[in-house]
């Protein structure tokens, strides 16, 4: 295998880790409340813009930008939960899809109106430099994003499976009434889930903002990526999202390299449709 191909695969894995991070937020909310957030990709977009504002206008670096983006988005998540989700969850399917889809438009075009449709990019010196290992050249910003995203996704998995908070959330997901009888507040747990899910998108946005194009409509593409990842990994499963995210990152990078950059999105979308046709239960196979 040529070095170039290895390089492309490593790049795909690093990007895939970020996909896994924000997709685990979608899968958490979906698995717990059976609601699909169509604004999920736009949450990531918002995280990118928060990071951009912190870096360029406030002069902060990633040490300030990433936690701040996480915090801002977690707040957005809680607000959205109480203002919208809590009510549409009980409504018909039409209201659920329209509600989060409308939210996506609202966020996307508010940013569009404020910042314009231009492609923005980070100043190159924020996370500069390139590392070289054994002939591979990896940009520091991508390495940072990949490693942090991987660690946080694993941490999220541990949080959900090994802590009492995680058990409480699982209890609410299994049976709200029973959980309530055990003294767990479903409302609080679901709000926490939204804070975690949106916080993950904020962090993911701040991480990829260093090397991605920043544009209001990027949320649409990223939203579909998140959806494909979750359908592949099985909904509600963070490890599933991790494996699927890494896989999609690699597939996207390889098809971008082998077929052409403009076709990499098409490959992911077509893959998604093929999965719906032949294996709708996802790779991990529970549904």
């Amino acid at each position, binding site marked *: 295998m040529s070095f170039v191909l290895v390089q492309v695969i490593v790049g795909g894995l690093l990007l895939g880790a970020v996909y896994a991070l924000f997709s685990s937020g979608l899968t958490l909310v979906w698995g717990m409340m059976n609601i699909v957030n169509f604004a999920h990709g736009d949450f990531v977009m918002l995280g990118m813009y928060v990071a951009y504002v912190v870096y360029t206008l406030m002069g902060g670096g990633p040490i300030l930008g990433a936690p701040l983006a996480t915090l801002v988005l977690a707040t957005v998540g809680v607000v959205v939960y109480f203002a919208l989700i809590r009510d549409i969850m009980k409504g018909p399917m039409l209201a659920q899809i*329209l509600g989060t889809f409308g939210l996506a438009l609202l966020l996307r075009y508010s940013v569009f109106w404020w910042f314009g449709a231009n492609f923005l990019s980070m100043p190159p010196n924020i996370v500069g430099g390139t590392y070289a290992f054994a002939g591979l050249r990896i940009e520091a910003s991508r390495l940072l994003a990949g490693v942090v995203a991987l660690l946080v996704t694993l941490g999220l998995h541990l949080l959900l499976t090994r802590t009492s908070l995680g058990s409480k959330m699982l209890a609410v997901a299994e049976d709200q009434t029973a959980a309530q009888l055990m003294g767990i507040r*479903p409302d609080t747990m679901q709000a926490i889930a939204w804070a975690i899910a949106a916080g993950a998108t904020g962090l993911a946005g701040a991480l990829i903002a260093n090397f991605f194009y920043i544009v209001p409509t990027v949320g649409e593409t990223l939203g579909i990526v998140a*959806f494909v990842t979750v359908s592949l990994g099985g909904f509600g499963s963070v490890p599933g999202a991790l494996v699927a995210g890494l896989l999609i990152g690699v597939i996207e990078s390889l098809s971008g390299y082998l077929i052409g950059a403009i076709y990499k999105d098409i490959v992911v979308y077509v893959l998604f*449709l093929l999965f719906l046709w032949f294996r709708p239960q996802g790779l991990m196979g529970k549904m």
Partner: protein
Amino acid sequence: MRRLIWLSVVAAIAIAYPLLLSSPFQQRLGALVLLYAIAASAWNIVGGYAGQVSVGHVVFFGCGAYAAMGSYAKFGLSPLFGIPGGIVLAVGLAAIIGVPTLRLSGHYFSMATIAVAETMRLIVTNTDWLGAAVGLSGPTVPRNIFDLSFLSSLPYYYLFLAILAITLLITWWMTNSRMGFYLRAIKDSERAARSLGAPASRTKLYAYMLSAALTSVAGALYAMMFGFVDPESGFGILISVKILIMAALGGAGLLFGPLVGAAILVPLEEISNSWLGGKGAGLTFVLYGAIIVVIARFQPGGLLSLFTRRSKPTKDTGAGHAP
């Protein structure tokens, strides 16, 4: 009887409108309202009556628009001859999307529709034969009446009015047929409908294909009126958004809901565009997003459901946390 009177009043207003308000701007506005009402009524068949929220409906619009312009630009025929081709293309695509996803929960269907619309937009943008990013143009000077290329909006107005009437008639006929009964049963409770023998997936698929065919006609009409189509106006997500929001605002699942939605939103957009200029484009969609959120949160049945008691949305899940 009262319904019949209302119907004749609406029809009379619709026929008289361009004669009473006869400035070119007003006639064009009227034609646009009808055009979007056709597309939104077509969406209503699958989104309102079948309860499957297609958020990538523009893909069928684009099939019709490209087929109409393609039949002129590629074969020198009248754009009219492209309409059957557009319908075939749209129905085929609907089957490709619908067969796997309509078995699953509605979220999969919605996401798949976005994915297909985006795929089509990317493919068309990169296909030179279809004019790539520039798109295809219709006849600049009409060779005969069959080119359907007019300077005035008046002929389009009456053409669209006729097609809208046909679309509404088809919808009305559908709701009163066996299919309509199946759809209502499925929307209330798919599991119950299935257990009583209603072929749920197949009925939803038929509704989707019918909706796709009618949307494709709307796309062809759009392209004829504007004389061109490009990837954004043919396959851009914003057209999907407009179609969907008009139906939802007026009342998804109600016969005249889409028309009411179009009659409110099309003038709103035209006015905000002419007042705010280029800066208005973003703001218009901020407003659209806000409207959709507010409808979903407070009145999922749309505006018309405020007046029709009969078709109130079911409230079985509305009463708080009580077990």
